[in-house]
């Protein structure tokens, strides 16, 4: 008697597909978003390429006059003198001193802070300490520069310790720059260490490892890529930092042989010379870009080395 009525499902009409798989309305929003995101990605690449070209063109001009060899290995930097000399070595030594001192301070302190926050501190303490650390990263570098010049160099080194040093030193600039970089290294490497699964720490503890062994042998290798990224960012900041060294390291380009000497870094030179009255297209103007290019290549080199290092030693979890 009763006919079978299908419940639910599409009504079947002969000659037509049961359901349409075509979209019922156009999705303009999604197409627009995709376009917008693609635009953002392309603009970033174009700008980077533009900066590189802007750096390269005057540099090529510069190297038409001054040979690469003379630039890289000359030991006298006097671009504005009548008998101009373009040996960049003095600037490189000053940068190496300030960056080296900064990293000697920042890497142990930063990694120590990260290990403490991620492995030892109770959650409540971590919640307080980490934002404090990140505030330190937000202090303008000019403030650090003044601190280095007025307090560390003038008061601490000369008045209190009575050190044999002038108004400027690479040590004061380097130390303060190190303090400035600590939060960068600590924060990023702490993120990397906290991301290592708790189950690995438990596995290690269950085998009779103490906290330090677990940190050094399990957490560190697993978080290595993040830790190296943090250090490389620290190196980049140290090499590229301008304000602190421009204020506290000094302004005379001479080969630096000791931490208490003053010296002009690559960035310090660019900052000083860019404020001057060098005419566009002049050799002095092109010099700025040649130094800038060198700075760029040094940072790039560090990045490459770190990528290779991470690929070699990382333990992927």
């Amino acid at each position, binding site marked *: 008697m009763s006919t079978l009525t299908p419940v639910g499902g599409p009504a079947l009409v002969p000659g037509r597909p049961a359901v349409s798989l075509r979209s019922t309305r156009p999705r303009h929003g999604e197409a627009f978003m995709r376009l917008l995101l693609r635009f953002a990605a392309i603009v970033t690449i174009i700008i980077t390429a533009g900066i590189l070209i802007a750096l390269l063109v005057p540099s090529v001009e510069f190297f038409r006059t001054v040979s690469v060899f003379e630039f890289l290995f000359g030991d006298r930097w006097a671009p504005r003198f009548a008998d101009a000399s373009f040996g960049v070595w003095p600037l490189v030594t000053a940068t190496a001193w300030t960056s080296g001192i900064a990293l000697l301070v920042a890497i142990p302190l930063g990694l120590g802070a990260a290990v403490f926050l991620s492995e030892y501190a109770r*959650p409540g303490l971590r919640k307080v300490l980490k934002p404090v650390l990140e505030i330190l990263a937000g202090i303008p570098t000019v403030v650090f520069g003044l601190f280095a010049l007025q307090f560390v160099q003038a008061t601490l080194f000369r008045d209190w310790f009575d050190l044999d040093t002038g108004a400027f030193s690479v040590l004061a600039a380097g130390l303060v720059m190190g303090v400035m970089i600590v939060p960068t290294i600590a924060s990023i490497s702490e993120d990397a260490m906290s991301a290592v699964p708790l189950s690995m720490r438990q*596995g290690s503890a269950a*085998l009779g490892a103490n906290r330090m062994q677990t940190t050094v042998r399990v957490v560190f290798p697993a978080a290595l890529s993040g830790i190296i990224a943090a250090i490389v960012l620290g190196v980049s900041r140290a090499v590229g930092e301008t304000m602190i060294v421009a204020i506290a390291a000094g302004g005379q380009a001479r080969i630096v042989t000791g931490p208490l000497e003053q010296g002009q870094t690559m960035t310090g030179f660019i900052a000083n010379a860019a404020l001057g009255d060098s005419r566009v297209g002049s050799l002095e103007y092109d010099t700025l870009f040649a130094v800038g290019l060198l700075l760029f290549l040094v940072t790039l080199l560090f990045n490459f080395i770190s990528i290779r290092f991470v690929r070699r030693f990382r333990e992927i979890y």
Partner: protein
Amino acid sequence: MTTNTRAASYTTGSNHTPTIQFPAEHAHRSNGLPDVPNAIIECTNVNVYYNDFRAVTGVDLAFGSKEITALIGPSGCGKSTLLRSLNRMNDLIDGARVEGTVTFQGEDIYHKEVDAIEVRRRIGMVFQKPNPFPKSIYDNIAYGPRVIGMKASNMDDLVEEALTRAALWTEVKDKLKQSAFGLSGGQQQRLCIARTIAVKPDVILMDEPCSSLDPIATSRIEDLMYELREDYTIIIVTHNMQQAARVADRTAFFTALASEESGDRTGLLVEFDRTKKIFESPADQRTEDYISGRFG
């Protein structure tokens, strides 16, 4: 007839001690420690708290040496929490606190002068989810002996021995330098067992070691547990009643009591006995209900 002959053969041994001995079983609840001969770990009135929340209450248990003891019960009954308190893994959890006494070979493991790291070296643990280190298979095994400074004349032999005991050697012997993450889940879990064996503990705690494994891998782990029982005391938490029935010498059944005001569930021990007794003629109605699948 057959039962008669069996009984007869049993009694004929009257002039020498029977090979199989069933010690007298006692109803033990609330009478302090259960009667387990040759107990290696004993819990007396153990309560475990997470901050103010009591996760486990008033547990009296004893774990026989070179036996397999299973802890079973519904979710939230505190069996994993209790297990973690047996080798002080709860120390790693903020706010966790243990009351009562847990002794290992008669020594209170929560005594002030006892080193938790030494406790964990003697009482190893295998976790619910395989957690190999992101290192090579070899380094996973060698890790424990290295960190505790074990005097191993030859690390290669030690690694081979541990992997062999964990029934993994033939599968991995040609790829010891490869990452442990390339192994299947079951192999990873056997690697974790091998890693635990490598430090030569006395007791191995297993927290639902098969819950993330397929039936074939599970049965391999069960076989392995049975072999390890020769030399090790094993305490296993499991959700799988058949597993408890298959492998365990004794079984402890826990249940959870929900507090009326907060709804927090506190675990308590209902019954502890030989596995056969628990599954065939449990003394407590709640055990019977759980075993027969009426709740849980």
